Every structure is written in structure tokens, then in C-alpha cells.
């Protein structure tokens, strides 16, 4: 049809606290934050643990998990996503702790269910910045 370029999708703008997460994704690895006091694990949206500890360390995660909830999106927020409609957004519960908002790719949208086992795959979206996506395990 026309050769209007598809605009770029929004990509993360890592800050000091989250850069190691996105950098690991660019290398095909998933990292979580872990509390050095109680061992709780979470995604890097947290900078302190509920136990009161503020000393968090990075730990490697397997990238495996299950679909906690999902939706098949038929109306995109931005023209960058229009070519992929309909696409699946899911909250993935990681087996190593914490949950991530992401997409489930590599399968039909109607194959996604709550509880579906998934594993992380990674897309590099910028210099040292990757994002985790998930595909049926």
C-alpha cells in the first residue's frame, strides 16, 4: 500500500536502578531483585523490600513462569502496534518470584490461557536495552 514507515514502539528508558535489568535482557538473561535480608524476590519496580531492607541485589532468574492473567488486545494504543493486532498482553508469574507485564508471542492468541507455562525470549530494542517477552514453554 503506502510505504509510510511504521513508527517505533515505545522502549524503556533505563534509570540507574533499572539499567541492569534491561541490559541483561539485551544479553538474553532475566534478572530479578532479591532482598539481602529476607530473600524475597521482585521485579525492579521495587527499590526496597517490604521487610524494611533497602539492600537489594541482582539475582539470575530462569525466565520460566506461568500466565497469571492475559488479554487479547484488538485496539492498539499507538500506530506502532497496529500491524500486530490482535496481540496478547499477559502478566507472567515467574517461577523465581515476581511478576512481569509482557506479551505472549509465538502462538495463536486464542491458545493463551491463565496457567499456561511460558518461557522468556528477548528482543533487543536499543543499545544495551532488551525487553523480555514470553512464548509457550
Amino acid at each position, binding site marked *: 500500500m503506502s510505504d509510510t514507515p511504521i513508527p517505533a*514502539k*515505545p*522502549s*524503556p*528508558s*533505563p534509570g540507574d536502578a*533499572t539499567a541492569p535489568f*534491561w541490559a541483561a535482557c539485551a544479553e538474553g538473561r532475566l534478572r530479578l531483585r532479591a532482598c539481602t535480608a529476607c530473600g524475597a524476590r*521482585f*521485579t525492579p*519496580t*521495587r527499590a526496597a523490600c517490604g521487610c524494611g531492607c533497602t539492600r537489594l541485589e541482582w539475582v539470575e532468574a530462569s525466565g520460566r513462569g506461568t500466565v*497469571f*492473567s*492475559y*488479554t*487479547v*488486545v*484488538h*485496539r*492498539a*494504543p*499507538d*500506530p*506502532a*502496534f497496529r500491524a*500486530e493486532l*490482535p*496481540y496478547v*498482553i499477559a*502478566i507472567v508469574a515467574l517461577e523465581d518470584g515476581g*511478576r*512481569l*507485564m*509482557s*506479551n505472549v508471542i509465538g502462538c495463536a492468541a486464542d491458545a493463551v490461557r*491463565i496457567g499456561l507455562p511460558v518461557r522468556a525470549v528477548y528482543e533487543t*530494542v536499543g543499545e544495551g536495552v532488551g*525487553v523480555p*517477552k514470553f512464548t509457550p514453554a
Partner: protein
Amino acid sequence: MTQSMYGRIAIAGVGEAAISTTQVRTAQDLAVEAGLAAMADAGVSPREVDGVITASPAGDPHFMFSTLVAEALNIPARVNMAIQAAGASPGMGVLYAARAIAAGDAHTVLVCESDSRGAKFKGDKIQAMRAARPWTDDWEDPFGLTVPGKYALVAQRWMHRFGGRPEDLAAVAVAARQHAMRQPHAPRKDPLTVDKVLGSAMIASPLHALDCCPVADWGGAVLVTTVERARDLRPPVVRLLGAGEGHSPYHLADIDDLPPAATRQSAQAAFGIAGVKPSDIDTAQVFDAFTIAALIAMEDLGFCEPGAGGALFAGGDTALGGSIPTNTTGGMLTWGNAHVIVLPEAVRQVRGDAGINQVAGAELALAHGIGGPMALAVTMILGK
């Protein structure tokens, strides 16, 4: 510790701005018009008001919005702030106004919420809303998450947990429409059926177009003051008998469980303070930007068992004459995303002044706001 403010705070005036579907009006103009209406309803002039609390309009954002509104209205404010609590902002505004009044920092506070999203947003409203937002969220935007998508994730989890069906959600839209159909000026008032909801375009599964409120302009305001002062103003005095807030994390993925605990937290506080139980409430006005939000809110407020929200709406309990007439205006599902809509209606119901959809003998009304895909909640119980 001072005596509890509850029972000593009143809502003395309510008002709305006139909405145009064609003319673009600014959020400021809409707030000013609603504010003037609320002050006129109470019978006070701007110089008799000493506080302004507004929401932060997302479709028409402006730095220091509450200061703009106070300036335009010439209100000599001693208390003035703009709240960022999305759909919970109007209710939070009432709570902070009450706190300021109880602390002696102000005596009469205008709380308003307005936004310009209707005539201003051309074409695809979901894209227009995204384009109006000045920030990118690293944890959600790279994946193409939308506002309906957030509520859809909550809905999918609710259906999974309770064996719910899209028909349960559709029942909320049908119930809202029945209240709307009785009002000649309602923007959505053609007859609606469950099949029609399920046949409307899929937006983000399981939410169809008719599970979502229209994107619109709005302006609404309430005037908060002391019961003592309210006695000299427009009768009857409507008192804030109890209220509570609930807070969950911003990111849906970070919330421990879905639905979030925010509404259960705010409801427990409000009912405890007011010393009443859900069965004592005569009418409920709850946030319904999406059907699933009102459905879960009714469960979490205690009007039915968890999982029974669809049956509550489908079975006529929320209709006039039902056990808990709900969203008697037709709600946001009818009028557009005017979060504030719950407040003036709850006040009018208690006054006995709600017109064609008045709940006969209503003495206690509950108003419930929700913000940020159910992460924030504010519950208020009003009575004479």
C-alpha cells in the same frame, strides 16, 4: 488526637458543567462552570470559600491546575492542591477537604474534577488518550498495554477465579442503560441487551466496546464544609458519615492479587467509621468506566458475595426498587468518563432530589471512586 471529623463534615453544594459533544472546552472552563454551579447550589459566593482541591486532568493537563481554577473563580484559598489519583481523585478530594476543615485550616472547600477528552480527541480515542500522556512507562508501554487492557487483565482474572462469563460483565452495561433510558438527555439511551454488548467490537478481551464508557468531556464539583455552616445554607444537610481510602501498587503486575485489595480496604474503613453495614445502604454510586470495575466494586464493597457481582446486576438488585439501586444516573457507562459523577448523585439521593431516578426514602448513600485500574479506591458514606 482530635474528635473524629466524621459526622461533622457536610457536602453543601453540588454542580456539573454543561457538556457539548461538538465544542471543545478546556478542563479549566469545565471546572469553573461546575464549581460555580456547586457554589450557587449551596448559596455561597466564591469569597466565602477558602479552599480549592481539583483533580489533575489527563486529557488536558496543566501545571498547577488547582491554582488556575482558584484564580479564575477568585477564591481566596487557604488550602489548594491538585490530586493525582486518577478516577479516585474526586473522592480523595473530599477526604482531604474534610481533613483540612477538621484541622481548622479551612472552613469551606470546593472540590472539582473536570477533563477535556471528548470533542478535543479526534479519531481513535484510545490512541488520543495515549498521545495526551506525556510519559512512557517502562514496564507497560513497550508491550502495547491500553487502559481497557488493564481492566481486561483484571476481568480475565476475575472470570478465571469465579467461573465468570462475559455475560456477567454485559449485565452491568444493561443495568446502567436501564437507568439512562428514563432520562431524556442521556447521551446513550437506546435499549441495550446482553447480546448487543457481546456483539459490539472487541476492545481487549473480554471487554467489548459497550463494556467501556464513552470518552467525553466533563466537569463536576461539590462544596465541602462544616455541618454547623451547612445548617445556614441550602437544606437538607448531607453529612459525611464515614470514608476510607485504599491503595495498591501502581503497576498491575506488582499487585499481590487481582482484584486489588484497595476497595476492600476503603470499604472496611468507611463502614467501620460510619457504623453501618452494606445492607443499611439505600443506594450505591460506583465507578463504572468499565463494566468489570463496577461489578468487582459491588462485591468488594460487600453488596454481594465475591463472584456474585454479575448476578447482582442481572437479577435486578441494582435497579430502582431492587435491594441496592446502583448508578442511578446511568453512570460513566452512559455519560462518559466523568469519575466525579458518583458524588453529586449520592448527595442528591440523600436530599431526595434525584429526579426521575430517585430511590424512594433513601437515607444512606454510598459513593465509590476507583483510580488507576483499581489500584486506588475511596469509599464515602453519606446521610442526613
